[in-house]
Each structure stands twice: as structure tokens, then as C-alpha cells.
């Protein structure tokens, strides 16, 4: 008789560092007590002992397995407790779950990444994964938009990306602040300036639902086919196991069939942007 792992029981991970990215966003550095690895784009259920659990896509490199980083925005009950945690405590992890980005399908192509708001967290993990295989890629372009310059997390990331061969990074804000002398406007305006070979390219979109909707429409208009656009869908993932029903999106369980979908898979599903 095979001994099956208890799918509901988290394993422990020590919180070793907490990085303040912005007033509402922190990155937690965790060292799992068990062997753990994930594919970029997969998610974990991260729990605060006795308080609650929430789904997050790790923002660290999938190649680094001794630790992982999870970027958390304070938006509700559980994340508020998380934001009060100090290094040294243990958190619980279940996962990894779901279908991540199919990086092998990007080989030989140009990758255009459209990101917004907190979507930069999973995108950072994807960028690390792509950097690791950059010899197999033609080009990687990141277009990122945040509400204000203060909301743009991982500030050193953009300078670093523009120094990596084959990588380009552009950013914009909805509303400028004192000292901002870069682009102003929604992230789709950045698409005007990217030089991309549409015949050999894939696009990745990750951010708030409104941004994903407008971004996808613009990419389709540009000429991307619906199976060339990869979307990271966010739903109320709870069990992560395709059982509890909370993340159902039409015929899909986002926790099992996603969170990464191609637009082709989703275009008949109503209300995906709600």
C-alpha cells in the first residue's frame, strides 16, 4: 500500500527576512524545512499559524531551491497578520500547485511581458527563469505599469534588466510624482515603442483584471494569436487541489488547470475579467 502524503497538511518554512518594498507590500524570505521546488508561475498556499492561508505565486527564481521569496500585499485579514510577522517565526506552505509558465515553449522566440501592479511579483520569478535560459531565447521585453512611482516594487530590477543581454525593461506610471521623468500613462502605451517580431513572439500578461483585459485586447490587435498570449489568472484559490470549488472559472479550476492559461483556452469562458 502506498503511503500518500496528507494533501491538507502544510510543511513548515522559517521566515528569515522581511523586505519592505512599499508601504503596503513586503517580500518574505522563507527557508522550507522540506525539499521544495516550483515551476515559475505555480502558486503555493502560505499560512500563518492558526490564522489563515492565502495563495501566492513565489517571486523568486525557481532555480534557487534553498529559499523562496513571496511578495505579499496587505489587502485583507490574513495578509494583515502576515505583515506583522518578524523573522524567526515559522509559516506553513502547501504546494506548489497549478500549471506555471511553459518556458520551453518560449525557446527560440521573443517574449513580451506586460505587467501591472502586484503582477510584477510572479513576473520577477519568470524573468529569473528566462534569464537562466537566455541563450535559448531571442529577446525578452518587459513593459510594466504601476499606479504611482512608489507602487513600483523591486526598484533595482529595471536597471539590472536593462544591463542583461537580450533583455529590455520599460516602465510607466498612471500618475507621476515629484522627480519622475519617465513615461506616464497606462502600460498599453508602452507597446507603441517595443520593437518585436510578431511572427516569432509570445506575450505574457500578469496584473489586475482591468489591466489584463485591456492588455489582452491590445495584444490581439497587434497581431498576437490567441494561443500566443499567456495569462496568469487570479481567483479565490483555497485548497489548491481542485476540490473545494472556490476557484472555479467556468469549466476550469484555476488551481489545477491554471493559474497560467492561454487566451485561447479562456476566450469562450464568460466573466474571466471579473
Amino acid at each position, binding site marked *: 500500500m502506498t503511503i*500518500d502524503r*496528507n*494533501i*491538507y*497538511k*502544510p510543511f*513548515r518554512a522559517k521566515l528569515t527576512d522581511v523586505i519592505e518594498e512599499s508601504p503596503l507590500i513586503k517580500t518574505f524570505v522563507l527557508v522550507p524545512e522540506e525539499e521544495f521546488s516550483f515551476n515559475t508561475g505555480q502558486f503555493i498556499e502560505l*499560512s*500563518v*499559524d*492558526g*490564522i*489563515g*492561508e*492565502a495563495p501566492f505565486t513565489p517571486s523568486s527564481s525557481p532555480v534557487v531551491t534553498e529559499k523562496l521569496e513571496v511578495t505579499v500585499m496587505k*489587502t*485583507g485579514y*490574513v*495578509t494583515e497578520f502576515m505583515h506583522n510577522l518578524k523573522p524567526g517565526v515559522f509559516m*506553513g506552505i502547501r504546494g506548489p500547485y497549478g500549471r506555471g509558465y511553459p518556458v520551453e515553449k518560449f525557446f527560440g522566440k521573443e517574449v513580451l511581458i506586460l505587467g501591472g501592479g502586484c503582477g510584477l511579483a510572479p513576473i520577477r520569478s519568470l524573468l529569473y527563469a528566462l534569464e537562466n535560459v537566455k541563450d535559448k531565447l531571442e529577446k525578452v521585453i518587459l513593459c510594466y505599469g504601476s499606479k504611482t512611482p512608489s507602487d513600483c516594487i523591486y526598484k533595482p530590477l529595471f536597471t539590472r534588466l536593462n544591463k542583461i543581454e537580450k533583455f529590455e525593461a520599460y516602465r510607466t506610471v498612471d500618475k507621476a510624482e515629484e522627480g519622475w521623468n519617465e513615461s506616464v500613462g497606462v502600460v498599453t502605451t508602452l507597446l507603441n515603442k517595443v520593437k518585436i517580431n510578431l511572427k516569432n513572439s509570445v506575450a505574457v500578461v500578469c496584473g489586475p*483584471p482591468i489591466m489584463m483585459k485591456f492588455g489582452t485586447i491590445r495584444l490581439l490587435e497587434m497581431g498576437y494569436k490567441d494561443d500566443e498570449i499567456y495569462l496568469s489568472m*487570479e*481567483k*479565490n484559490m*483555497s*485548497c489548491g*487541489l*481542485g*476540490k*473545494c*470549488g*472556490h476557484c*472555479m472559472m*467556468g*469549466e476550469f*479550476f484555476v488551481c489545477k488547470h491554471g493559474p497560467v492559461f492561454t487566451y485561447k483556452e479562456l476566450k469562450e469562458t464568460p*466573466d474571466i475579467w*471579473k
Partner: protein
Amino acid sequence: MQYLSITKDEWDKTLERLLLSYTIFATLRNESGIEYELVNPSNITRISYNKPKPVTSLKTFFLPVRENVTSAISPGKRRIIMGIPNCDIAGLKLLDEIYLDKDFKDIYYRERRENSVLISSDCFGVQEHCHCLTYDIKPYSTSNSDLAVIHLGDLIILRIITSRGKEFLSQFSLVKPMKDQSLVSEIEKEHKATEALLLSSNKGLPGYSETGKLLRNAGDEIWRKYSAKCVSCGACATICPTCSCFLLIDKPGFEKVKQLDACQYPGFERVAGGEDALFEIHRRFRNRYMCKYVWKPEKFKPVACTGCGRCIEACLGRINKNELFLELALDRS
């Protein structure tokens, strides 16, 4: 199908002996109908055979309302559940596919499943809202339950369905292959009579996939109309043999409690940012039926509605889903 038989008296005595090594639940007669009860020597004679259907669905035995899913499993006494209508046996097929999924097996569900002998009971008769046959589910079991039991005259007849059922019966020397094969025709006559009742009481009700097609094209108005009296009590989901959505609640020590939930409750799909795709009642109402008839069939083979009719019986607002389906079927024609 192989049939074995034993006299009713001997069967009752056998059950009494089985109580030493099994916990037995069976459908018993009470003032309001039949319901599962824990069997003990004094209530064996009240066990009801072949009458549809217990108020509670079989689901309760495998998915309790609340359970700790991080504590160690203590091997319990084996159990027998007897008197299960085929609509519930069919519902269990869907639960098996969800909870015994090869990638993520629920070890608590599996332990209960492996530890239970399922004895179904052929339905000789129908209740007001039974419509299993409309969804191609017969009122008697030929798969997934271990045995089927029929009380005919002074005999208890057992139809062997699985190898576990066969093995279970092999321990009772008094259960023997049925001598009088004409009784098989008696049983089949009862089956046909029940099916005829089901057909006549559900005329015009569209079948399972046909209902899915009708729902896909249904506009907002019909959902608003039928959900007008819904109070989001969740009774329909609680009593349904196939509904199993749940919450995971954290307890200290990284313990988790799994508690049954219902998509009819407000906030079922609410995210931390505040958005709630199913905020309005008619959207939650629609979600239930789209899930059962359109979306689950895309993911799972067994049907997600077995036609037991309990949701119609349990609804506080007296909402009858079959009236909705009949209206859609009529509009289309």
C-alpha cells in the same frame, strides 16, 4: 448478475452478529419517512428495505460537515451502510473522482471508503421529486455499491455487485445461491414498475446533457425569476449527494479543519481585494446549475446531479429546479 438469498429471520440474526465487528448504519422507518440510523439489536426489525429514500444523502458518511484533516488517522471499526438508493451510489462516483484523484488523494475520504461495505437497496416505488431515470440512473444499483438488498416475501435477496461484496457474503454460510430463479423476474417486474412511475411523473423533463445545453443559452431573466425566493440558506448544497465544496480553516499548530461550504453563501468567490464575481443572488443561483450541468461534465465523467430531488424537498423558498428546466425546454420548442 448473481443472486443469493437468506430468510429474513436469519438475516436479522446475521446483522446482530455483525454488530460485534462492524458499525452498521441502515435506513429505518420513523414518523416522517425513512432515515439512516445506527443499528443496534433493538431496532433491527425497523430496518426499511426498498423504499425510497433516506432524507440524508450518502455523502454525509464520507464527507462530514467538519473534520480535522491534519490529525493522524486512527483506524476505526469497519462499517456497513445499508439501504442506499442508487441515486446516492451514482453521486458517490463523482465524489470518488474528486477525492481519490491520482495527484491529490484525500486520505481521510479514502480510509472511509475502504472501510465501508455499501449495500444499496433497489427502489420499489418513487417519491414526489425523484427523477433519477431522466439522467440515465436506474432506481436500482448494478455498479459501485458492493451488494444490493431486496426484501421479497420472507426472503432477503442479495445481488452481488463487486468482488468485495462477494467476499463479504462468503463469511455467512446461511447466505446461499437463490434457488427460485422466478424471483429474479419478480424483481425485474418491480424495477420496470418503478421506472414506469419515474417516466410518467417526469414527462418532458430534459435529460442531463440536454439540460446543460439549455442552461448555456439561458438569459439573465430566468435566473432572476427562479432565485427571487432564494435566501442563500445553502440547504440545497448541504443535502445534495454530489455537492462537496469546502473551506479550510486554520487552527494553531498548522492544523486544518475542513468544513463543508456552499456556493449559495455570499462571499463564496470574494477575493481579498474585495471583488466578488457572485455577489448577486441570481448569479450564485445560476452558478450552482452551470456547475452541475455544464462545467463539471467538462472535468468529470460521472454526472453531478443524480436526480434524487432532495434539493427541491429541502428548499426553504420552495424553488423547484425542474420547473426551471421545463420552462427552458418549452421556450426552446
